[in-house]
């Protein structure tokens, strides 16, 4: 059975692609080990491992703690804005950092000829300004949408004053609110005939469609 599974075309294609990747990788590994003086490989190994260690042991835990803290002390909108500033501004900072550090240290004056500190400040200010503007615009859009929605709801309520829904449950305030996606199924509703009072909510129960159709007549 196991052998038969290996014969599936999709799996075969994946195995072939993986083998091709390993072959490409082996070209590089062989070239590195044999293609230049062997003594160079120790510093190459250090820099290769150094990148992994800096990411795994330094950057990733710091980012985790940062996200953990921000999640608790900021709202979603502020968090999104901070994340945008960090990603855009941080990328710009990484790109320009070698220029800032090497400015004036190269005998060739045509390398790093610009005022990188000033330019970095300009770029970062533009990034912060852009993110703040985008955040404000997004908040305004959301508020407008909520107002529109409220107006629609009010109109509907006026038109259909007796709209009743089959199940109503008050949800506790977040963050105590557990994710409804992962909660157990709601308990089965008691079989209440239409028009009767719901035992827990005290609301009169109707089939919604019927309510809509019948309301104008009432």
């Amino acid at each position: 059975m196991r052998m038969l599974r290996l014969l599936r075309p999709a799996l075969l294609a994946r195995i072939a692609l993986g083998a091709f990747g390993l072959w490409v990788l082996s070209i590089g590994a062989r070239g590195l080990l044999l293609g230049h003086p062997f003594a160079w490989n120790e510093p190459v190994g250090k820099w290769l491992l150094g990148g992994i260690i800096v990411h795994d042991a330094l950057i990733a835990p710091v980012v985790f703690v940062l996200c953990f803290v921000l999640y608790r002390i900021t709202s979603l909108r502020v968090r999104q804005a901070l994340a945008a500033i960090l990603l855009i501004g941080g990328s710009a900072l990484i790109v320009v950092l070698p220029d800032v550090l090497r400015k004036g240290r190269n005998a060739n004056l045509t390398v790093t000829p610009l005022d990188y500190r000033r330019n970095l400040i300009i770029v970062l200010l533009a990034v912060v300004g852009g993110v703040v503007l985008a955040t404000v615009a997004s908040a305004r859009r959301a508020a407008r949408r909520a107002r529109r929605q409220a107006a629609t709801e009010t109109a509907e309520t006026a038109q259909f004053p007796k709209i009743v829904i089959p199940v109503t449950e008050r949800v506790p305030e977040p963050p105590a609110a557990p994710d409804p996606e992962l909660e157990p199924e709601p308990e089965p509703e008691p079989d209440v005939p239409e028009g009767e009072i719901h035992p827990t909510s005290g609301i009169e129960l109707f089939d919604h469609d019927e309510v809509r159709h019948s309301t104008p007549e009432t």
Partner: protein
Amino acid sequence: MARFLLPSPPGWLRRGPLREGAFRSSLHDERTATLIGTALGITFTTAFLTGLISHELQLAHPPTWIPDRPVWIFRFTQGLHVASGTAAIPLLLAKLWTVYPKLFGWPPVKSVLHGLERLSIAVLVGGAIFQLVTGLLNVVQWYPWKFAFVPTHYWVAWITVGALILHIAVKAPEIGRGYKRPGPVVGPEETAVIVPAESDAVRPGKTTAVLPAESGVVRSEGTRVALPEGTDVVRPTETTLVRSTETVGHPASAPAPTSAPTSAPPSTPPPTSPGGPDRGRGTGSRRAFLLTTGAAVGVVTLTTIGQSVTWLRGIDLLAPRDPSVGPQGVPINRTAAQAGVLTSAFATDWRLSVVGPRPFQLTLDQLSSLPQYEVVLPIACVEGWSVNGRWQGVRLVDLLDRVGAPPGAFVRFTSLEKAGFYATTTMPREYARDPLTLLALRLGGQRLSIDHGYPARIIAPGRPGVLQTKWVTRIEVL
């Protein structure tokens, strides 16, 4: 057991990021990883292919499949090489953030196969970081390491791309799922599904709702939603009627997956958000995250691309070069002082030796009295910067004809530089016989500055700058 399962480490080690549900954002999902991974894969592939072109052009016998026209071909490929590497920086940051919960997966190694997969990812991450860091430092000519940049960057590129191909093969099912557009998912910024009720309470809360059949499953995970008066929060069941809401997180026209019918119970796991009990709560929308990543790519590209796209020089704020800064308005890669030619280049007994079947020598005055030609050709450096120059000098083909070189001959140039990787270079016949290839004596109407190769230098179309040999003293027919 074919998968060679390994025992789990003791549970008390499972703290901090190793805890279950430690990562709350729903953006650590397959679709986000796939979309950003695709962009990152494109930049790495572009950098690899353009890097191969640069590598091949620098061989003593470059392959003939790389054309020498248009004259700016190397300017384009190498500018693209550096630009795609620069663009990969924010993409790699975003990709690593998206998938970093996997770094803290539990148990760390489930089986031998899982261990090998993690090892291949370590190779990919290590190689990717190595390539971007060494490339970024090379463009400012900063070499704080004890290996040669060019061969190492080249070989590690093969390792990284090989690990990338392997990664795609391993993750193919996840990538396939990531490309499938899920049903519309309502993000936290979107309006909650609200239904008028007889309650007059205005209360915060969060809702989950099922849309009509054509819309698929909808989740709304806002933190606090201020509901207008006379509304209540609805927990859906199969019979609940709710109205469709705006789905800002996804285009409303997104086709609904057939596996998500209207009657899906609320406990159906959302297609995008597996994970712990709090997974996804208070998370920004994927669209916002992708837009932010795109903005980061845009910012680093636009503020650096001016070093090769000269009409964008005005916003060249962060690039290590300004294409207009340098002697005679053109940057240089290696100064005369660095090359150690300050004395020899100005020596009065300088002669150009042309060696072939009928060898001869010329003084600078004799060279200047030969028929002069003017060409506009870019000087394009492997470090990404490039700029057009107006060069005047003697056509190389005229010198080769005079020395009696056979039509198919390669040519070797020797510089006054005593040391250096490019003190002697070889030019294939295609470039040597090109009527645009000059032994240039002047740039922009003025005699070559010492840093640009006085008394004479080579300028040819479509060649890397390091092969446009400066301070030429000998031309040899091979």
